[in-house]
């Protein structure tokens, strides 16, 4: 008898805790590590922009315009402007650093708005079912049938574009995946024994929905959140590129590409640099999302 107790204690002492297992899986996942690493770097760039940017991103020095980046073998290339300057003589690196703030701010805020809308609709549809589900599903279907880019552009042009308008319009448009995923996951959770147990105990509906169901479907929602944040960042860039998103002189990466479009045949790096920044940001967020899904998936736990 005492032998057995001892054995169990020994096993407990040597076995890794669930948290340690999760860490091990996370750090063993190349995509997750790469995505998290790159995202951390970009977030740090955005937060530290006022301190690490070599110049003011709005400062126009017309006699220093269109200096190529340092990797070009060019007489004008200088370490004072590592990524060169644009057609108004503004330091490209400084604009890129401040631009990270806009992409992250819009991506995160639009995602947060759509998270609230989509999750509420999905929880209501999945938990109550029946008529509530029919109404919510109808709203989701209607939203899905309207082309996002076109509607966003039309609405922004009618209201007048600003950072707030772009965030609101995108947030109000991209909640569909949250709703679809939450609805399906809630329907599954609704059948589980612990929900029935909570109902038997007399828990209120709000307590069951937010205390029992929501925490259990949260991992899936985090994955959707990464996808939608990347989606919002790409949409903002596309809107700004078309001149209907963030307005000049703000250094949005999409706007930087739009401003350089006329010069791209002569100075291709002007579109390559902000484009590459967008690409790496979206790639990092997508890899982080894929990684989180793999790492938290129950079938990968052992």
């Amino acid at each position, binding site marked *: 008898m005492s032998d057995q107790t001892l054995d169990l204690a020994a096993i407990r002492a040597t076995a890794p805790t669930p948290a340690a297992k999760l860490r091990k899986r996370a750090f063993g996942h190349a*995509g997750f590590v790469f995505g998290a690493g790159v995202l951390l770097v970009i977030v740090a760039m955005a937060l530290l922009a006022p301190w690490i940017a070599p110049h003011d991103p709005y400062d126009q020095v017309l006699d220093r315009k269109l200096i190529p980046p340092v990797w070009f073998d060019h007489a004008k290339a200088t370490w004072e402007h590592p990524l060169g300057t644009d057609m108004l003589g503004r330091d490209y690196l400084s604009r890129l650093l401040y631009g990270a703030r806009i992409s992250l701010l819009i991506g995160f805020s639009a995602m947060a708005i759509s998270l609230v809308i989509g999750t509420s609709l999905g929880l209501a549809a999945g938990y109550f079912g029946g008529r509530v589900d029919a109404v919510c599903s*109808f709203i989701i*279907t*209607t939203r*899905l*049938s*309207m*082309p*996002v*880019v*076109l*509607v966003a*552009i*039309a*609405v922004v*042009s*009618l*209201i*007048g574009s600003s950072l707030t308008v772009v965030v609101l319009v995108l947030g109000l448009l991209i909640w569909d995946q949250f709703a679809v995923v939450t609805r399906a996951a809630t329907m599954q959770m609704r059948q589980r024994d612990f929900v029935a147990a909570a109902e038997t105990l007399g828990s209120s509906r709000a307590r069951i929905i937010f205390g029992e169901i929501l925490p259990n479907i949260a991992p899936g929602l985090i994955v959707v959140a990464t996808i939608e944040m*990347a989606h919002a960042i*790409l949409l903002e*860039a*596309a809107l700004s*590129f*078309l001149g*209907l998103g963030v307005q000049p002189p703000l250094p949005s990466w*999409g706007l930087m*590409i739009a401003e350089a*479009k006329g010069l*791209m*045949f002569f100075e*291709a790096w002007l*579109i*390559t640099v902000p*484009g590459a920044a*967008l*690409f*790496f940001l*979206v*790639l990092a967020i*997508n*890899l982080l999302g*894929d990684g989180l899904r793999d790492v938290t998936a129950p079938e990968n736990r052992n």
Partner: protein
Amino acid sequence: MLAYVVRRLGVAVLVALTVSALTFSMIYLSGDPAVALAGEAATQADIESIRQYYGYDRPIIVQYFDWLGRALQGDFGQSHYLRAPVAEVIFERLPTTMLLGALALAFALALSIPLGVLAAIRPNSLIDRAALTLAVVGQAMPSFWFALTLVLWFGITWRLLPITGSDSWANFVMPAIALGYYVTPAVMRLTRAGMLEVLAADYIRTARAKGLRPHTVLFKHALRNAIIPVVALAAVQFGFMLGGSIVIETIFAINGLGYLAWESIQRADLPMMQAIVLVLSLFYIVLTLVADLLNAWLDPRLRTA
């Protein structure tokens, strides 16, 4: 099946009506449309006459049903800028966008289905990993940046393709690639997942055990079944592409519906914008309807859901 078709059709009609109401109310987003149309130098009398001319003085609900009734007869009103019937201009531009969408879809399917099949035949092989990398990279590339990069390489550096216009087939090569590649990852993943599932099924083992050639098993038995959801997805993605072609058409100056939408937005041509949003939404509604009915017809389990 009939009950399902009727229910699904009913939902489609209701969605279409809701979309039309939302599209109609769009013109009130900017405040008073008469003021917006009149411009900054207009007097109160100008605004009033514009309001009466376009009927903005009537109750909104009357305006909506009037607009809807005409739209159902194919009359979307007059373009404020082009001074031509909106429907006429749209039907003139629509074929170009459809052609672009079809070419983009063809490119996406031609790339993603073979890759998905190859990846499924040898999971975790080099091909599988390469296809997955391609999907991850493709999904992260902003379409307008990818389009501009194509222009730089094929249009400027190598001078292989024309960079603007829509006059010859060569004009459509880059736009179709730029529009289609975004769909490739989704189609590829679905093909791969479908093939993996089907290849593990008992009837495939039976077919192999009968001694059929691997080739026959793969294409006649496996792909035929795995391709069903891909067809439905392709229909839905085609709708997405029609809606998303605005960016690509603007870059390549392709004279389609997307470019028209962008021009109309620049010119504050409200009737044109409304009609384009409505037409593209209707296309999407019809395409998803077809996809759902196709799925239900091929997979009876879905009919009761």
